[in-house]
């Protein structure tokens, strides 16, 4: 019986700044197992501890993580450069089950760093674009600098992704939409009976996004959310990530809305 806490060695190959508090890390991990869009890894900084971070790309040559500076472990990560070693264990958790919905329209919704979770779905779909109907990607951020991966947007649109952007606070030369991400639903034209919604972002954003989907008439079991909770073990034994009757680390982080309906949106749960 192997310890679930054993770490793989990861060599940081490249660090790409996304904005002032977000960086993308490309990590070489030997024999990293296959993974699916929406899954996460535990990243370990020697002597400091671990943080759960979603895998932000389907690429297989290097493991990509997009990290926001929020605490002690990420602070240490931010001081790291190419050649530094970190520990990696994973992949963990449920995924966005996009492979089950060939022939469907997709509405993908991301708020802020939530795009890191949704990006692998976009990449997966682009790899087999003809399998899907219309594919919308709705992205909201606090300000234009909060819109991640902007250099990829052109390519995504060329591949048939309907990309819609909005920011809360326009800054600089921003001429696009201003407002919350749910505003963008007015530009979405899909058949609700043949639509799947997938989202990741702050809980309040997801709360209103779920309501939009329900208003549209999308079935509860075809609305998928990625939930975030405190995590220590990632294998369902430390108890920190409990979200009602689920463990976010092993039952989630991706849930169909129908599974968490009675607990989602309840304050301080």
């Amino acid at each position, binding site marked *: 019986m*192997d310890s679930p*806490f*054993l*770490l793989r060695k990861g060599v940081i190959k490249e660090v790409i700044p996304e904005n002032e508090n977000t960086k993308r890390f490309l990590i070489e991990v030997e024999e990293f197992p296959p993974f699916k869009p929406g899954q996460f890894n535990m990243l370990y900084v*020697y002597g400091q501890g671990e943080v759960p971070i979603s895998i932000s790309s389907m690429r297989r040559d290097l493991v990509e993580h997009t990290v926001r500076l929020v605490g002690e472990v990420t602070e240490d990560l931010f001081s790291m450069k190419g050649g530094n070693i970190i520990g990696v264990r994973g992949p963990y958790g449920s995924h966005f089950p996009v492979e089950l919905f060939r022939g469907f329209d997709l509405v993908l919704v991301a708020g802020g760093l939530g795009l890191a979770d949704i990006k692998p779905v976009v990449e997966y779909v682009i790899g087999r674009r003809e399998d899907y109907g219309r594919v919308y990607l709705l992205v909201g951020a606090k300000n234009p600098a909060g819109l991640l991966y902007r250099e990829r947007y052109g390519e995504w649109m060329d591949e048939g992704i309907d990309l819609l952007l909005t920011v809360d606070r326009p800054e600089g030369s921003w001429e696009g939409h201003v407002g919350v991400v749910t505003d963008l639903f007015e530009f979405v034209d899909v058949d609700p009976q043949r639509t799947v919604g997938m989202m990741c972002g702050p809980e309040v954003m997801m709360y209103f996004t779920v309501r939009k989907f329900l208003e549209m008439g999308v079935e509860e079991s075809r609305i998928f959310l990625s939930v*975030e909770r*405190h995590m220590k073990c990632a294998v369902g034994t430390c108890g*920190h990530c409990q979200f*009602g009757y689920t463990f976010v680390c092993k039952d989630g982080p991706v849930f169909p809305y129908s599974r968490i309906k009675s*607990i989602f949106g309840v304050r301080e749960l």
Partner: protein
Amino acid sequence: MEKVVPKPEMGRLVDLLLERGYRVVAPVLKEGVILFEEVGSFSQVARCVTEKQDRGHYRVEKAEEWFGYVHGPNSLKHFLHPPKTDLLKVKPDLSQEVPIERKRYAFFGIRGCDIASLRILDKVFLGGFQDPYYAGLREGTFTVAFNCTRPARTCFCASVGTGPFVRGGSDLIITELRDSFLIRATTDEGKDVLEELDGREPKQRDYDEEKELEERSLSAMVRRVDTRDLPSKLLEKLESDVWEDVARRCLACGSCAMVCPTCFCYEVVDDITLDGSGSVRFRRWDVCFREEFSTIHGNPIRKSVASRYRQWLLHKFSYWVGQFGELGCVGCGRCITWCPVGIDITEEVKRLLSDG
């Protein structure tokens, strides 16, 4: 296999377990409290005492019966999921060593609630991802369980179906009769040990006496919880005012979680040497009453004490069923006895069910 053995044979039973290489853990009387501890002989085992337990109250008194008590604050989780466990020894180059401890325990003098806690902890640590640290301490465990004839006022095991009499899941099950013990072996290992004890075939009057004791025990149990549809009924009480009311009394000290035989939550900590040459990753018990327990990005999800008590109570009586397929409460009542302000989980469940 069943046998009626004279009382002094109990010492032989402990000796037999020690001879077979088990680390025998048994209730001992220490500073006025009954505690499970490793023992080297039967003479150390708590005998001829009983307990007076009530909300926020615990006293030991002399008694005729040898084992007419239930349990003090600690439980089997202290041995199988200890307060602190090393998980990984890491070097700066990320070379790693997994320190797995192996112990073969015999738990003597445990109760129906303790047997149930083993089954529940097994589901947590061996039901999904396999936890080798727990497995190393759990494999080959031998159990000697006693049927409770003197439940404490805080006990409510009958409500959750774990006691007061043990219905299996233990190698040996013992009922203390007036001047002998009726012992049942329910496993091959149990039979093997029981065969070595002197005794006789049970007679009808032994069964009659046992039956009487069970009835006395059941009628002595004053607390109860109505578990019918409880998990789903409680899910409808997420916004109840009762939570705020409990929060006015609750100190959020976490004592209830510490003494709970099934509370398993832990945090993981890195302990790095001063010169930085090595780090030990260890786990230690954590409790959902701490604000930091739920914190992400510096903000606690459960800011209020009300939400933390709700998490604790609902985990036991509702969430656990979704997570592991049965209730997380074994009805031992430790949380009632050891709560410094005397909050009674059975009372709070009643209030929730009658609220709104």
